[in-house]
Structures are given as structure tokens and as C-alpha cells.
């Protein structure tokens, strides 16, 4: 027996495909926004929580945190402080044996303090102790005179080392300008790895040198001519607390305010505060994403309602006949609701799959920044399930509109 589909059903199939595509599109937007947005802030929070230090002293401006060595020592004396690590980040030009100047971000650190404030990620990437000669950087610094011997040692990140053609034991010239003759020759004494994603602070720099060497190289260290304190700059001082205090917000707050007492005009912030800030910013963003998504979803559902109403319209005659025969309204409503649920469930399912696929595509072909962000995407099954169920539930509203329309049709008019 021939079971060819009737023309009416073929006509419906096209409508169904278009509706499913519309709903899937409107669902994939929130999937992408929520998973990537959530992933990026989760990553930021993770970075903060794995930092290995709890408090950051920072000051903007060309000199940043002045008298960094002295300040670190004063902070070290505060109870519960395990280490204070001043860090200066400066972009300089590196000259390897071959090739021209290569801009690179260099961090100047006190080697021992840096090691004491490493988080778990960094601990796995850096040699300990750092092979930078003078662990406390006190010989060169020499109590503010910079008269002691500099080590001129440099640790190089593994990608930089690979691309420069140098090796541990060779040397390169670092210069504050593109002029090689203004530079100083540093010995490569070690190498460090970079984390798999480079949104974190550690991967942002390509080299580590002793703080005083970098200060001298870029002119941020100078003996005082007039007896005033010498210039001795850093960007930040990262402060790690000892043992139990590190996990105790009250202790962190106490130490932070003690530090603030030492440097009333610098910013002193605890990472727990920063985590809170990231969370707050992230929830604002999430709300924004949801608002944006709900616009997309509303458009998708309006489309669904339109198609269901359209379907009722095209089935006017059939609905009239069914009702004339005595088919109860609830059966007719049931058919519409079933169609709505099916279209929205398939659409939402495909939207979730499509959204995930889109993120995966962005991870591979999105351009550097997008690929990184997409790489951090977190697909929370509860969010995705909630989204799907929400869309399916909202489709009931669309079905209700179409049902109401269907049941208000006048039977004699539908039959004419």
C-alpha cells in the first residue's frame, strides 16, 4: 500500500525545520555567552586563588612603588607575613647572538622572595631556588648604594629560548632601547616554562632578572646625590602570609591594614577582595548575558508562536472538521502543545549542541584572543539543562497562544 506522505505534511516539514533552526539559533547564543563568559571569570578567579600570595601593594606612575627593597623588609616584619616580593615589569629589547632587537617583558624580582610567593602553577614552572646568584638581591642593592657586584644573570622562558637560538650558558644583551650599545650583557642561567594558557600573569613575561639589575638597566635605580632616599622602584609588592593566616580573611585584612599604615598612598588590596570583585563583575556580566539571551530566546519563541499560529491557520479547515465531529478542545490543544514541545525540545537540543560546537570552532579558528577565551569555556550541565528546560517550558506559552486561536475559530466559518 502506498504510504506517501500527504502534501500537507511535507509543507509542515519545511516549517518545522525553519522553526527548529530559529530556536536552535536563539539557544546557541546563551550557550556560547554563558559558557565562555563563565569560563573566563572562573579562570581569573582560579588564577587569583592559586596566586601564592594574598595581598598586593601597587602604585601607578613611572616610579611605582618607591624604595621597594626597604618596603619589602618592613612588610616582612609584620606578624604572619611569610614573604614580601617586590616585582618590577619592564619591556626591554633583547639582542641574541643572531637577529635584531626583540621586545620582551622582563620581571625584576628578589629571587628568594619570588620563590616564596609562587603559586602552585608557578612552582611547577620555575626552578627553585631561582639560579640568579644573590638570593636576596642585597649585594648589588647594597643598602641603597647599588655599589655591589651585579650578577647580570637572566632566566629565559622556554619559548623565548627556543626562538632565539640561545641556550643555558650563553648570553644575550638586554637594552632599555632599540640601541644595542645602550644595553648590558646578561648570562642565561636558567629557563622556566609557561602555563598552557597565557591569560595568566606568569606567561606575560619572557624573562626574569634580579630586581636591582633591572632597575639599574632601565634607570629606575640611582644612588641618591643629596642624601635623600635612592630611587628603587617596583610596580607591585606581592605579600604571602604564613600558614593558617593565608586562608583567614580576618588575618588578611589585619595584615593589609598594617601594610596600608606603612604606605598610606599606595593601593593595598587582598586577593580575596579581588576574587569578590571578579565575582561581582562576573555576575553583572552573567546578568547582562542572560538579558541578551532572553532577547534572543524571546525572538525564537515569538517565531515558534508565529509558526504555530500559522499552522493553525493552514489547518483551519481540519480543525473545524475535527471540532464539528466532536473532537474535544483538549485533544486539539494537545496536538498543538505537542508540536510546540517537540519543535522547542529539538531546537533547544540542537541549540545546545550547536553552541558547544561553535565554542569548539572558536577554540580552533577564532583568532588568538578568541581562541584563548573559548579555550576556557566551561559547559555547566546544570546551566545547559536549565536552559533547555526553560525554553521547552516557555514554548508552552507559544502553544497557548496558538491553542487559544484554534479554539476560538468559529466552526461554521472554518467549514465554509
Amino acid at each position: 500500500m502506498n504510504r506517501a506522505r500527504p502534501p500537507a505534511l511535507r509543507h509542515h516539514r519545511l516549517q518545522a525545520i525553519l522553526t527548529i533552526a530559529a530556536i536552535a539559533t536563539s539557544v546557541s547564543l546563551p550557550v556560547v555567552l554563558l559558557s565562555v563568559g563563565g569560563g573566563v571569570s572562573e579562570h581569573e578567579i582560579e588564577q587569583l586563588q592559586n596566586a601564592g600570595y594574598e595581598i598586593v601593594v601597587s602604585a601607578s606612575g613611572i616610579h611605582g612603588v618607591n624604595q621597594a627593597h626597604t618596603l619589602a623588609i618592613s612588610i616582612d616584619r609584620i606578624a604572619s607575613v611569610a614573604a614580601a616580593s617586590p616585582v618590577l615589569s619592564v619591556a626591554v629589547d633583547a639582542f641574541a647572538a643572531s637577529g635584531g632587537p626583540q621586545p620582551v617583558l622582563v620581571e625584576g624580582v628578589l629571587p628568594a622572595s619570588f620563590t616564596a610567593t609562587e603559586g602552585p602553577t608557578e612552582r611547577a614552572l620555575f626552578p627553585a631556588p631561582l639560579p640568579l646568584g644573590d638570593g636576596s638581591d642585597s649585594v648589588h642593592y647594597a643598602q641603597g648604594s647599588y655599589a655591589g657586584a651585579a650578577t647580570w644573570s637572566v632566566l629565559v622562558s622556554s619559548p623565548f629560548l627556543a626562538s632565539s637560538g640561545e641556550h643555558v650558558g650563553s648570553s644575550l644583551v638586554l637594552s632599555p632601547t632599540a640601541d644595542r650599545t645602550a644595553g648590558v650583557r646578561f648570562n642565561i642561567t636558567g629557563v622556566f616554562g609557561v602555563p598552557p594558557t597565557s591569560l595568566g600573569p606568569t606567561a606575560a613575561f619572557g624573562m626574569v632578572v634580579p630586581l636591582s639589575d633591572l632597575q639599574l638597566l632601565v634607570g629606575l635605580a640611582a644612588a641618591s646625590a643629596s642624601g635623600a632616599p635612592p630611587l628603587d622602584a617596583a610596580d607591585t609588592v606581592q605579600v604571602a602570609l604564613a600558614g593558617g593566616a593565608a586562608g583567614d580573611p580576618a588575618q588578611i585584612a589585619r595584615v593589609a591594614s598594617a601594610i596600608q599604615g606603612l604606605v598610606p598612598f599606595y593601593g593595598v588590596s587582598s586577593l580575596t577582595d579581588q576574587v569578590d570583585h571578579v565575582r561581582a563583575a562576573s555576575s553583572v556580566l552573567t546578568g547582562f548575558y542572560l538579558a541578551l539571551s532572553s532577547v534572543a530566546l524571546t525572538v525564537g519563541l515569538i517565531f515558534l508562536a508565529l509558526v504555530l499560529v500559522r499552522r493553525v491557520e493552514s489547518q483551519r479547515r481540519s480543525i473545524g472538521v475535527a471540532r464539528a465531529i466532536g473532537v474535544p478542545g483538549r485533544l486539539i490543544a494537545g496536538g498543538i502543545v505537542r508540536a510546540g514541545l517537540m519543535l522547542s525540545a529539538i531546537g533547544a537540543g540542537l541549540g545546545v549542541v550547536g553552541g558547544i560546537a561553535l565554542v569548539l570552532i572558536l577554540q580552533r579558528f577564532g583568532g588568538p584572543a578568541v581562541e584563548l577565551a573559548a579555550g576556557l569555556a566551561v559547559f555547566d550541565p546544570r546551566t545547559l539543562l536549565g536552559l533547555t528546560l526553560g525554553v521547552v517550558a516557555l514554548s508552552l506559552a507559544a502553544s497557548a497562544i496558538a491553542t487559544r486561536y484554534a479554539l476560538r475559530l468559529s466552526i461554521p466559518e472554518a467549514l465554509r
Partner: protein
Amino acid sequence: MSSADAPRIVLEGVGRTYGEGRAGAVRALDTIDLEIPPGQLLSVEGPSGCGKTTLLNLLGLIDTPTRGELRWNGTPIGHLGERERTRLRLSGVGFIFQRFYLLPTLTARENVELPMRAARVSPGDRHQRTSQLLESVGLSERADAYPHQLSGGEEQRVAVARALANRPGLLLADEPTGELDSANTEAILQLLIRSRAESGATLVLVTHNPNVSARADRHIRMRDGLVVGDGGGR
């Protein structure tokens, strides 16, 4: 084969006006007083626009009168709620339309099953009765065909089977042979007359075809929304 008892139908001053309250109100039915005893084969004739379809819609409870009262066995039912009227239509009325009006997305079998599904007849009984009905209209072989795969005569036979599904006491046929050739007209007519004879249902038949009305027990003639003639067989 037992049938729902055919009701004694009484129309008292029944009228139907469309677009009432507005300038262009149309009196589709003026004032109809009519009594239809159970089991009668009644033919309704009259020129186009005289109100035949309107009368059938009122008799079949898919429309409500704007004046007067409609009774089944003495009970007023013209103004029942939609739910109640749906229930009465399902169990008590079988419609046959000029243009067949099978549901295009259902097969012949599914079309015949539809009223029984709506009446929650068990799948077993439903299947059996559908097979019986399709056989009685000579379409057992075409049970799985969709309407677009059937000829007009076949479609109308399916429609008759569908109208008979729940053994209604009242069959309403609005020009059921209007789109059929003479051979098919004869077949459908035989089918309707035989079904009525078997079930004892009342059959109200709108027709322009004198051969069709010749089989009726009684003829009413309408003009301008009024019954202008009422008599026995010619």
C-alpha cells in the same frame, strides 16, 4: 449494531442572524418551526443562499441560534456550552460534507477512527469497528491511503464511514453528492439510505438532485431563510 437513539428534534421559532447589531446584519434563517421525528429521512431543498447549511449547522450543534429554541427529546440544547455541545456532537451527530473534508494528514483508517479516539473507544474495539465500516463502504483495500490518494467517490465513502463511527442518532449530509458523478452519487446515496435503515438514525439531507430527494420520506423547501414547503414523498 445498536445506535444512539435518534432524538425527536423540535425547532421553535429558530432564527440565525449574522453580524447582528451592525448595519449589514444578514438574516440567514428567519423563523423556523419544525419537528423532525426520530428515524426520518428528510430532504432539504432550496436556492443557493436560502439558509440550508445554516439550518444544518444549527441542527448539528456547531452553531447557536440567535432566536428561538432547539430541543432534543424536549430538552433545550440550542444554547448549551461549547463543551456540552461538543460531547453531544461526538456521540449523537454524524456530519457528511459536500467537499468530503477528510483530514489530509490522516489515512482513511485514521479518519474513520478519529471520532472513536475522541470518544475514548478502546484501541481494539476501534480497530475492529473501523475495519467493519471500511468494509461496508467497500474500501478495506484503501485503508492506509491518504485522502490525496483517493478519488472523490472514495473520499466521500470514507467520510460516510467516519460519520457512522460512533453510531450517531442524527446524520446530517450537506449536498453529499454535489461534487460526484452520477455513478458515485448513486453509490453514496445507497450507502446513506442503507446505513440509516440499519441504524434507525434520522437523516437530514440537503440536495439539489431530484433523484436524491426522491428517496426521502419528507421534503422541506426553503426560501430566504424560511420553510416554504413541507410534504411527503413525491
